[in-house]
């Protein structure tokens, strides 16, 4: 993320009813006292702090006529965020609280699709709260054909997962839950806590592009070959030394996400582009993707490319082959 980014950060709080969203939101509003915060909530919570502007909104999901079949946006958010941006008292932070049944994709896609919003607001992170005692039941719930499991989606879309209410279960259960969350979303940092008592620095101003550390912490999933060709939502991480040809990358991603965008929930990467001394940070939501220059590569730092896909029916071999063909100098 470039240092000069002056856009207002937006945090999306998602999670099932009872996962502790309202408790966490009230903590943010109390502890960030003195900052101007606007909260957009989808269900009347018990948010009550005088210096926050709280707006209620009913989810309105709109399809886009942009040739992208899975591209939906939140019409209500476009409207409300648009009105907020026209106010003179600009906000330090905006928090969007979604219902427990909300699909996070349209929320994230809104920031890609609407230029007015994308130019003034920055989607900082999607924070998913899960209840340690009940999340496995939600994740395992079998839905009718064609109906998404919202709990799986919310975990898959998360940049950070707050594993709440760990005081209500034993340590072995926490480990089981962590492993399960990790299998769905290898990228999100999991923060165990009780009573939503986490350090707010772990969920605010995260900069969703901050991937390097996570990938270093747990390189295991880079080679994990479980769950190929199945309906389970999993993560595939790929690491490649060398330099990427940006045109080949765009062609490949365009083709891949065009064909498989419905199954690929999120894609993220930190890349070394040929001819650039800065990292290229990239992220996509379904078929939409966007990239920008990040920090400069450090002296002596190996120029390597890391890419992560989270989704259904991911074919590691095919993804690896496609990514490798984007390397500069490789015969096409």
């Amino acid at each position, binding site marked *: 993320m470039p240092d000069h980014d002056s856009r207002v950060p937006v945090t999306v709080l998602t999670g099932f009813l009872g996962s502790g969203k309202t408790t966490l939101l009230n903590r943010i509003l109390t502890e960030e006292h003195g900052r101007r915060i606007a909260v957009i909530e989808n269900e009347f919570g018990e948010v009550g702090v005088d210096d926050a502007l709280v707006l209620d909104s009913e989810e309105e999901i709109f*399809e*886009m*006529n942009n040739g992208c079949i899975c591209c939906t*946006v939140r019409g209500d958010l476009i409207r409300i965020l648009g*009105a907020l941006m026209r*106010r*003179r*008292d600009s906000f330090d932070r905006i928090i969007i609280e979604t219902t427990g049944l909300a699909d996070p994709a349209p929320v994230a896609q809104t920031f890609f699709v609407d230029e007015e919003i994308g130019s003034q607001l920055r989607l900082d992170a999607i924070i998913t709260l899960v209840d340690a005692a009940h999340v496995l039941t939600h994740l395992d719930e079998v839905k009718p054909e064609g109906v998404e499991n919202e709990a799986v989606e919310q975990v898959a879309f998360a940049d950070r997962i707050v594993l709440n209410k760990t005081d209500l279960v034993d340590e072995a259960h926490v480990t089981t839950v962590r492993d399960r969350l990790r299998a769905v979303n290898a990228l999100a940092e999991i923060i165990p806590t009780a009573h939503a008592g986490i350090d707010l620095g772990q969920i605010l101003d995260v900069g969703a592009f901050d991937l390097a550390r996570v990938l270093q912490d747990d390189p295991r999933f880079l080679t994990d070959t479980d769950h190929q060709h199945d309906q389970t939502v999993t993560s595939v991480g790929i690491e490649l030394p060398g330099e990427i040809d940006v045109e080949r990358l765009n062609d490949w991603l365009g083709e891949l996400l065009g064909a498989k965008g419905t199954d690929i929930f999120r894609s993220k990467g930190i890349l070394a582009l040929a001819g650039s001394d800065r990292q290229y940070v990239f992220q996509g939501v379904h078929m939409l993707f966007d990239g920008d220059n990040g920090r400069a590569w450090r002296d002596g730092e190996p120029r390597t490319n890391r890419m992560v896909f989270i989704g259904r029916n991911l074919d590691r071999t095919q993804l690896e082959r496609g990514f490798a063909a984007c390397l500069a100098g490789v015969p096409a």
Partner: protein
Amino acid sequence: MTTTTLTDTAWRQEVDDAPVTLTTTDDLVAVGGASGTAWILEAADGRPAGTVTLPGGLLDLAFSPDGEHLALTGPLGYAMWTATAGHTTVNETMRWSARARWASERVAVADGRTAIVLDTGGRELWRTEPATSTVTDLAWLRDGRRLALTAYNGVRCHERHRPDPIAAYTYVGSHLTIAASPNGRWICTGNQDASIHIWRTRDASELTMSGYPSKVSRLAFDDTGRWLAADGAPEVTVWDFAGKGPQGSSPRMLRAHDTVTALAWRPGGSATLATGGSEGTVALWDAAAGAPGRPRTSARRWELGDQVTALAWNGRDRLLAATREGTIHCLTPRT
């Protein structure tokens, strides 16, 4: 480029908010601030004459044609202010009210997924059945005999006092604004997917003007119904609806702004268009001049130094312009 900078300004006034909308009568100007206060100013000299507040913010303001009543709409409801009595009726519905549009002594206001028609006292006369999502804009057709409203997936037209639509024009997508030609022949919507969708009401035939770089959120027909101005690009586009309409034609393109933030046709059908931009310019155009498809620049402009957020004519000779920091400029174009 031969640009003349005109500095003719009758008066300036400051308000303590970011203005989002302007409306005028012969005697008064109302300035709507984003946070919910409307400032009433004397049109002659800009002197403050009072304020009206709608809790939760303002999205639109509209004076009645006789200048006696002011409708206010916002994210949490709507209100009616009566100038002579200084009396305000507030209706905090907690629903999004995007727009107010008058037709003689009645005003249609958006109320969530519904449109409600009120009398001058703010009393409900009738309402439409709910649309599928929040109403984003309204327009009266045929001298107020028919009301058109737009929401996600299209436009519905209602005869007076008829909750069910007499006609529905469907087009999948998020429609942000509506403009109808005064004779009711054309209905156009500006869309989130960077296009203008146009219906000919007689036979519901439709066409789409795509290729805009960004969403189209402002559309305006001039008084004659021949010219339609649109934002959605750095150039203001003006489509010619003479004869069989704009199908297959290119628009006139007016280049003055980084991003177009306001459009206002001069009343009286002279094809004169005022436009405002994010860079702080107000430009005045003869939209009929020039060739279609060829961008041209304006000979008349004012540099206000701050993003223009609203424009409104006060008669034919005075143009009100509001800037983001809260300055209202009463400009006097020489013609």
